[in-house]
């Protein structure tokens, strides 16, 4: 590049770095970079010197030592004898779990509320405005605490299920809703369950194939095939048939009250539920606004044209408006997903042990390795956030306006 410039006409002079428009921006950027490097170097030197003066050093050796503490929600095998590194992994999985659940429910809530807010029904539209304004304008930590307190206050404690005439009873003897969380039956996979699961997966694939076929028919012949009932039938019938044909190979483990708590079954802790619910409704309110903006961004002519073609309102929304609105909706949606992930670090408020609670909380405290733990924590959130944006950017590219 430089050769083409210099060979043009005049030779390069030093003053051109400031006076010449072609070089000026580079000069400023180089200067800014130089200042940044100096500041970083100063902070780095400060850190190393002060740590040395205090007789400390940076070391990640603590990750291999036994953690010594227990964690309530463990998605992988873990005990107080496991290493700090494993405790961090338990925390990472807990963070990912609540972030994943939160993203899904926030999206469903947000899209529903966003569309309904534009409803012609005055009451529905106003109700949705109230939802959005209330949940968007109160900090999420407060929502987490409010939901957790309501959860604790409204639902009975496990001890209420005890005795001859218990104050509370289980729903169909399967579900127990307690202030400490919700217990549900857990599937037990016995011999032959592989076939049932396999059938189920095959019928899901068949549903996709059916829908594809229906779309193909619609585009090529203009014939609209109703896929709802065949899909439902495919979803239920083969699996149920195989299930009974093989003599019910999948059983259920029911939660049972033993001592202080229920045992067995799937246990969704109150902390997880409060956090998940709070993050969902809070972020859902933001997503609703983005969805509304996206829909409004689609020219009204599109709706009118679709209506003129005789499409029913829900087809207008699903086939014409939403696909175009998605181009506006998806980019901000990425940052809401990132927000859910990062806001999940408020988990300790409800005793949910996420990565901030394990690595950035107990491990940091017990080992005193604050700088090391915080650096790792930042690295983790950075990787997760970049991962989410990468996935969402791929999706964004797939729904972008394709110019042919």
């Amino acid at each position, binding site marked *: 590049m430089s050769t083409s410039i210099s060979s043009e006409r005049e030779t390069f002079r030093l003053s051109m770095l400031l006076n010449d428009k072609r070089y000026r921006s580079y000069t400023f950027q180089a200067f800014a970079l130089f200042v940044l490097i100096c500041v970083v170097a100063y902070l780095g030197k400060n850190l190393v010197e002060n740590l040395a003066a205090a007789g400390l050093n940076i070391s990640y050796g603590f990750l291999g030592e036994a953690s010594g503490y*227990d964690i309530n929600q463990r998605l992988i095998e873990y005990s107080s004898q496991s290493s700090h590194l494993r405790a961090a992994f338990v925390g990472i999985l807990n963070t990912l779990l609540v972030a994943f659940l939160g993203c899904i429910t926030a999206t469903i809530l947000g899209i529903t509320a966003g569309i309904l807010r534009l409803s012609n029904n005055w009451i529905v539209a106003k109700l949705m405005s109230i939802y959005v304004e209330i949940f968007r304008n109160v900090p999420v930590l407060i929502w987490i605490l409010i939901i957790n307190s309501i959860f604790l206050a409204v639902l009975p404690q496990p001890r209420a299920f005890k005795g001859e005439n218990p104050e509370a009873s289980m729903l169909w003897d399967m579900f127990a809703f307690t202030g400490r969380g919700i217990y549900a039956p857990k599937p037990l996979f016995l011999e032959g369950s592989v076939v049932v699961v396999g059938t189920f997966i095959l019928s899901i694939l068949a549903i996709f194939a059916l829908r594809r076929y229906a779309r193909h028919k619609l585009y090529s012949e203009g014939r609209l095939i109703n896929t709802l009932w065949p899909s439902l039938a495919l979803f239920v019938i083969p699996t149920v048939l195989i299930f009974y044909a093989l003599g019910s190979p999948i059983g259920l483990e029911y939660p049972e009250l033993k001592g202080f708590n229920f045992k067995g079954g799937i246990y969704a802790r109150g902390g997880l539920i409060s956090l998940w619910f709070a993050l969902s409704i809070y972020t859902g309110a933001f997503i609703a606004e983005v969805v509304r903006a996206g829909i409004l961004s689609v020219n009204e002519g599109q709706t009118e044209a679709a209506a003129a073609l005789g499409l029913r309102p829900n087809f207008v929304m699903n086939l014409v408006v939403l696909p175009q609105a998605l181009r506006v909706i998806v980019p901000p949606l990425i940052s809401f997903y990132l927000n859910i992930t990062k806001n999940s670090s408020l988990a300790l408020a409800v005793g949910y042990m996420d990565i901030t609670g394990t690595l950035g909380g107990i491990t940091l405290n017990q080992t005193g390795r604050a700088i090391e733990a915080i650096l790792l924590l930042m690295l983790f959130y950075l990787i997760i956030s970049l991962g989410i944006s990468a996935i969402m950017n791929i999706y964004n590219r797939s729904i972008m306006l394709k110019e042919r």
Partner: protein
Amino acid sequence: MKKTIFFGALAVAGLAAGIVSAGTLDDVKARGKLNCGVSTGVPGFAQPDANGVWQGFDIAVCRAVAAAVLNDSDAIEFVPTTGKTRFTSLASGEIDMLARNTTWTMSRDVDLKFEFIGVNYYDGQGFMVKASTGITSAKSPDIDGVTVCIQTGTTTELNLADHFRSIGMSYEPLPVESGAEAVTQYMAGACDMFTTDRSALAARRANMETPEDHVLLPEIISKEPLGPLVRHGDNDWADVVRWTLNALITAEELGVTSANIEEMAKGTNNPEMNRLLGSEGNLGEMLNLDADWAKRAISVAGNYGEIFEANIGSGTIIGLARGVNAMWTDGGLIYSPPFR
């Protein structure tokens, strides 16, 4: 992006390693104020009263040091710290000393580079349960599967894991950030059991509406020597804090009280008392303080025993007996090296 992480981390590190080299005693004198790290509120130990004035057993140590160094027991900036933030606050120089029922452990002393200057309360970890559960022992098989509220970032977390491991039973920890919040959760029924130092349990229980509905289990599962601490490497400052605490203890041993201190300071025929109160010798000078330092420290709220009785003793709602925290002359563990 990468740069941003480093930048942030280094900023954190820069804060964390702030002022380590300067002499803390000189800093405090120049500032005219002692920055004392305390808890966010434990009844009897550290809690603001109705007028917003900090009161308590740990607070009294801060006040004694401020009186000894600055001649003003109110020249203190109380910095409330949580179990999680306390060590960072101290290491970074945000506070000059930490008086926050902190357990003296080897790793905190050696690895975290702190200097525990003594023990002002010998404690042990205990359990509190609702009387209605019928539990009478923390070792009974009935407690299998119990949900335990626990203050995160404390030694109690590790002791609890060890205890349940040793009795071979399962439990469900419910980590909470502060003691007050743990009580809220415990009262709401989110947990069946609350564990922390027995002194704090007694304090919390005393503050409940119906203390008789809650029982402290007899087991003590750990040793928790609680004491004030300062940063490693500033021995002059550590000496000042250490000997201020020792002065309070020695005062009780010698019978110096807030009532008779003016009288005693004029000079007595007990040489150690004279050295303590400055009418003889140059102990204050050795600490870079004046001769009256210990007299001022004791004058604030009296000797160790008076402070104990006024804040957490049997006459207060906390109602703790002296027990192992009695003077060594009464068969307890409270003991000070001689003032000589």
